[in-house]
């Protein structure tokens, strides 16, 4: 399914939601580029919280001014070399667009260089051992500054945290760039957008729901659209009631923040505090990490180290439950949060986290498992074995007999006193058409069967008597 945040990404600057003032400054800056010579401020920094429209407005701007776009984001390794090869090379040369047409800058044919998440560059040397590819962003900031100094093309840096960009060798950026701040988008504007999306998608909804989603997003348009989409999957109509489906949303908010911290930062001290603030058992938290780890760590080496940390944490959880000694929890916690956090050699662009599918699967299969266990219990009693053994060893064979032999099924239904639901479960989807027959037959034969059995046993007894009689014919010694 198409991601709505991409599908409804604004096509032009005037479609961007909120932040009119910032959009105005951005447009003004872009106009200074339409002359023959580059302006004084050759780069702008768009700073603001996630989901406030920074990347969207940069892309929309390029479209409005018919500029070619080069985008470097967190999914590219942004070390000195990549920035030089792509951004710097692009900045000092004229442009061939993606179709190979020549865009002469004197005729307004610019290329816009977008460096997304520019505050997320790791400056440290973090070359992973034995791996050929270097995913770190080493020396990235220096390369960005140099590029801005010599560029002949417009550059946009996008950051969540302006201070993070300026500190640690980025001071000179203050002088050579203009900062444009993006604020949280107000609820009314988000509601308008959500309503427009619903209209386009032919989904009927009520305003109250949209308002709730918008409020919960706290000015983050992207998360609001994500929330709306996850509510609308497979539905034509949504209302406030549908929100109960995501009942644990508020609690999830905290867990999402915690996950983000684990995956995006390397500050172990911080992570320890977070584990305490998350309102769930550490072993449940582990499930969340495991579920989202492969979605986040796309580089295979990072993923391997991440799983390694997780598996070690799991060993400690095993020891905790085996010895019932909870003093081991801190080791497990540190491994699964700190261990996973330091496993990465770079930052990733992912910002969607999902609840553990294992837990979901468990929840949705609960009724079925209940029936299975009750059948296993009845069967176990009959065979004098534990539920576990009956479930593991007897039930599979039993099901097979039950499905293929209708007389057996009738007899068993009566003998084990199986309910209709249990009978249906045993038949499975393939043989469910036999259900009616079995139920009828079991009812009918309830009395008959007893008779038949009685008759049978009589016959047996008779046989015995006859044999005895035959035996009786053998003269005994006393006959003589």
């Amino acid at each position, binding site marked *: 399914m198409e991601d709505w945040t991409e599908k409804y990404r604004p096509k032009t600057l005037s479609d961007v939601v909120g932040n009119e003032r910032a959009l105005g400054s951005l447009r003004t800056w872009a106009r200074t580029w339409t002359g023959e010579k580059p302006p004084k401020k050759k780069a702008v920094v768009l700073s603001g919280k996630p989901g406030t429209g920074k990347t969207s407005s940069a892309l929309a701007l390029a479209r409005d001014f018919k500029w070619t776009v080069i985008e470097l984001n967190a999914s590219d390794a942004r070390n000195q070399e990549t920035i030089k090869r792509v951004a710097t090379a692009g900045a000092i040369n004229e442009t061939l667009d993606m179709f*190979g047409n020549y865009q002469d800058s004197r005729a307004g044919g610019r290329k816009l260089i977008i460096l997304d998440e520019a505050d997320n560059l790791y400056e440290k040397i973090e070359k992973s051992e034995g791996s050929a590819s270097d995913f770190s962003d080493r020396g990235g900031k220096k390369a960005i500054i140099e590029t801005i100094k010599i560029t002949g093309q417009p550059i946009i840096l996008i950051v969540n945290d302006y201070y993070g960009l300026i500190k640690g060798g980025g001071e000179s950026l203050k002088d050579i760039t203009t900062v444009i701040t993006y604020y949280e988008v107000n609820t009314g504007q988000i509601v308008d957008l959500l309503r427009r999306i619903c209209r386009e998608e032919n989904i009927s909804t009520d305003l109250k729901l949209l308002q709730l989603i918008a409020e919960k997003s706290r000015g983050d348009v992207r998360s609001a659209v994500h929330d709306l989409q996850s509510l609308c999957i497979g539905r034509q109509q949504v209302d406030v009631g549908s929100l109960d489906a995501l009942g644990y949303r508020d609690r999830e908010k905290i867990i999402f923040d915690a996950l983000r911290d684990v995956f995006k930062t390397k500050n172990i001290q911080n992570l320890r505090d977070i584990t305490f603030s998350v309102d769930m058992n550490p072993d449940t938290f582990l499930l969340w990490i495991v579920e989202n780890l492969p979605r986040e760590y796309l580089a295979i080496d990072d993923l391997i180290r991440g799983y390694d940390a997780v598996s070690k944490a799991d060993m400690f959880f095993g020891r905790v439950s085996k010895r019932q000694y909870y003093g081991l929890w801190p080791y497990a916690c540190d491994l699964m949060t700190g261990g996973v956090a330091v496993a990465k050699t770079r930052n990733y662009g992912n910002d969607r986290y999902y609840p553990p599918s294992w837990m979901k699967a468990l929840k949705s299969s609960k009724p079925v498992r209940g029936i299975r266990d009750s059948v296993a219990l009845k069967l176990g009693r009959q065979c004098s074995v534990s539920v576990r053994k009956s479930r593991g060893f007897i039930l599979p064979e039993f099901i097979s007999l039950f499905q293929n032999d209708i007389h057996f099924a009738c007899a068993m239904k009566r003998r084990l006193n199986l309910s209709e639901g249990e009978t249906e479960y045993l038949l499975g989807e393939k043989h469910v058409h036999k259900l009616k027959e079995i139920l009828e037959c079991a009812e009918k034969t309830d009395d008959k069967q007893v008779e038949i059995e009685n008759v049978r046993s009589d016959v047996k007894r008779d046989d015995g008597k006859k044999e005895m009689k035959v035996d009786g014919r053998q003269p005994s010694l006393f006959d003589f």
Partner: protein
Amino acid sequence: MFNAKVKSDVLKGIIDVTSPLVNEAKFNVTSKGISLRAVDPAHVAMVDLEIKSKAFEEYKADEMELGIDLDKFSGIMRLANSGDMISLEYDEDANRLIIKIGNLVRKMGLIDTAGMPDSKAPNLTLPAKIIIKASELSQGVRASEAVSDHLTLSVDKDTFELFAEGDTDTVHLKLPKDMLVELTTQGKHKSLFSIDYFSNMIKSVKGDDPITISMGTDNPIKVDFDFADKKGHVSYLLAPRIESD
């Protein structure tokens, strides 16, 4: 369907001319041969490559696209020695290219080509045309690399000149018309280019092989040459450097 046998040197030639500019490329395969047209990630240069089916020992193909990760492919080609016969086959079900080098079978997953644009050959009027021996040109470019990161190419009716200027050092290569294979121009022309792009473009041509240069004033430059025994042809387009004051 795509099924071909080819000498390793031809494939290495293809990699040599494309991999300096693009990491991933969409090869268009037809019954007549293979072509590729791609713009580099910085949107500065374009490579336009064509290789005829004659360059292959055996060649059978329907019209199709192959999305190839060139870094990976060049790694695989390093397994082959010069003169080795390589068989290529497209496995449609798994979207893989099956590469056989001797007894070695290497299956390489292909990239989805859906998002890759089809570039057109741009319509440019480049009034000057120079044909020059590769060795002459690469000497000048190699010398310039040590001095600066950009060079100026200029041409008038008698000479073709290459000039690079660093902070203290300069390089000047002046070739009169009789040292060139061909020189036709209307008037004087001059353009500025990044050296690393330019040197990547010409580095696979060796010795006396001719390179054709088409240029104008402050316009892109076009560099053309043959490879794989003239059964392959490559044409580069490089956007000029923005002149800073």
